[in-house]
């Protein structure tokens, strides 16, 4: 992330995102810095979804008419694209879900069904509620025990706790790949090493990582990876779970319904092979096509240059926050203080100013931020905070966005403190 800024034509990228040309409240340019919540969509994705619904709209599988076959092919092609993006060994390792939350719930139910009371799952104190609540629900269903890795002062999952927390009873370590609050990258290699010593599985919440370039699930050495299309320049309503084929194949279904069966009688049913076993009902077809277009679009971006670009901008945000905070440090960055081993998701707290008030005033400057606990309430409470304000950057952000953010924040703090 600290690589020197290479040539990166951000204006050419911006030209592909029509929403970036809109005016906020009809008068000020949009400076969109809420990418960790949802990223914007380029023409290529919008065009792909429109073309699908204009030319190939039909339900997938089983249909023999031309449109059904075309839709089935498009859906399969989208799966292939996502599989390639995460470097899956086989397409069937990718299951389309409603998003990261849906993917994690799938694991919590299907893998969770193989666990028993007393088995342990290791999470962390930095998790999004989507990677906490499904496991709490599993604990209520089965009596599994949840254990939690701590968080370091600079907002990283403390892998130094692994030896103490990962016992022979541990069946799964489920942690975020990149924090949606601090932007910190988890030391996945340490997590995988600890899991393998006891034969436990590893699941990563990749919601914040997947938008920053291809993922190598084989290289990471993990068992499950969950991701959302809407954070990676695709449509909402779709995401994916990647799972190691032999692991997925050994799991029972999660949801029952059409398409996930082999045979059905009034007495019992048998299950389809993966991935169909985990895709009950009509899937989000057009959205999957859009997600495929989004990963196609991402695959043609020079992600190293994009990372250098966003890293450079994020460093300016960090410097600016320090300058606005002044000597009395009334602005505190919650997370790593530099761009070392992190992504451009920057949360901060301001003494005497509430995140929603800051966000509201920044909105009048056209700057879209997010305030609150970011679905990471335990982490915020551990820091004595009800919430933080978060600026999160994507590859289409430019220097004008950072300037608008910093000047708007200055204005907000003048008004509020």
């Amino acid at each position, binding site marked *: 992330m600290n690589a020197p800024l290479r040539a990166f034509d951000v204006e050419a990228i911006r030209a592909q995102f029509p929403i970036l040309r809109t005016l906020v*409240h009809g008068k000020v340019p949009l400076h969109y810095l809420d990418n960790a919540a949802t990223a914007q969509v380029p023409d290529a994705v919008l065009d792909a979804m429109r073309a699908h619904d204009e030319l190939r709209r039909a339900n997938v599988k089983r249909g023999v008419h031309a449109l059904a076959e075309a839709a089935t092919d498009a859906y399969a092609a989208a799966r292939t694209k996502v599989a390639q993006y995460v470097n899956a060994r086989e397409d069937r390792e990718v299951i389309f879900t409603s998003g990261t939350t849906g993917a994690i719930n799938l694991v919590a139910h299907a893998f969770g069904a193989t666990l028993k009371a007393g088995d342990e799952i290791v999470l962390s104190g930095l998790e999004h509620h989507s990677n906490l609540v499904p496991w709490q629900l599993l604990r209520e269903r089965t009596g599994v025990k949840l254990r939690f890795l701590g968080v370091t002062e600079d907002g990283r999952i403390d892998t130094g706790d692994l030896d103490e927390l990962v016992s022979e009873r541990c069946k799964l370590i489920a942690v975020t790949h990149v924090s949606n609050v601090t932007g910190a990258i988890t030391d996945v290699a340490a997590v995988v090493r600890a899991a393998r010593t006891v034969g436990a599985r590893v699941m990563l919440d990749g919601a914040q990582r997947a938008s920053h370039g291809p993922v190598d699930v084989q290289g990471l050495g993990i068992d499950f990876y969950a991701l959302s299309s809407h954070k990676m320049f695709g449509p909402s309503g779709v995401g994916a779970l990647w799972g190691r084929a032999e692991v997925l194949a050994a799991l029972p279904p999660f949801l029952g319904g059409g398409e996930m069966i082999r045979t059905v009688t009034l007495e019992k049913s048998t299950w389809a092979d993966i991935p169909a076993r985990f895709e009950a009902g009509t899937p989000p077809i057009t959205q999957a096509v859009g997600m495929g277009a989004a990963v196609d679009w991402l695959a043609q971006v020079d992600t190293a240059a994009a990372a250098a670009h966003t890293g450079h901008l994020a460093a300016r945000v960090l410097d600016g926050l320090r300058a606005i905070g002044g000597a009395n440090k009334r602005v505190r960055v919650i997370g790593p203080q530099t761009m070392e081993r992190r992504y451009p998701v920057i949360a901060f707290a301001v003494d005497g100013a*509430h*995140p*929603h*008030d800051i966000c*509201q*005033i920044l*909105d*009048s400057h056209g700057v879209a931020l997010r*305030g*609150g*606990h970011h679905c990471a*309430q335990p982490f*915020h409470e551990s820091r004595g905070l*009800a*919430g933080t304000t978060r600026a999160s950057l994507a590859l289409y952000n430019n220097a004008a966005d950072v300037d608008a953010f910093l000047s708007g924040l200055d204005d907000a703090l003048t*008004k*509020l403190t």
Partner: protein
Amino acid sequence: MDTLYKTDVLRLAAQATGAGKLADATKSITVDNPLCGDRVTFDVRMDADGKIAAVGHTVKGCVLCQASASVIGANAKGENAASLGAIRESLKAMLKQGAPAPAGAWATLVTFAPVSGHKSRHECLLLPFEAVIQAAT
């Protein structure tokens, strides 16, 4: 929009009328906004007639939430759960349907009229009412 942060709103929040713990409270209620994590605690002491004799509040929230609690702190004495419920409904109607602000002692609520165009902030004003009504019930 900046119109939400008019001097009147900032002044109400800064006044923080009724802020602090009420030592001899008969009931204390804490409510949370699950969307943003804001937390409001209202302590209430009721008199023999079932009316509020005194309130105290602790707000971990935004300026709007603080200002709303401050208005309640200034005007809650003599009210009960039912009358506060009616005032909350008047505030809701002002925010959601553009109805006039309540008259009389609660006329100060008109200060929040600009919030009507910002649905996501309505709860910031209503959360303190939820707390005080539960505490007075």
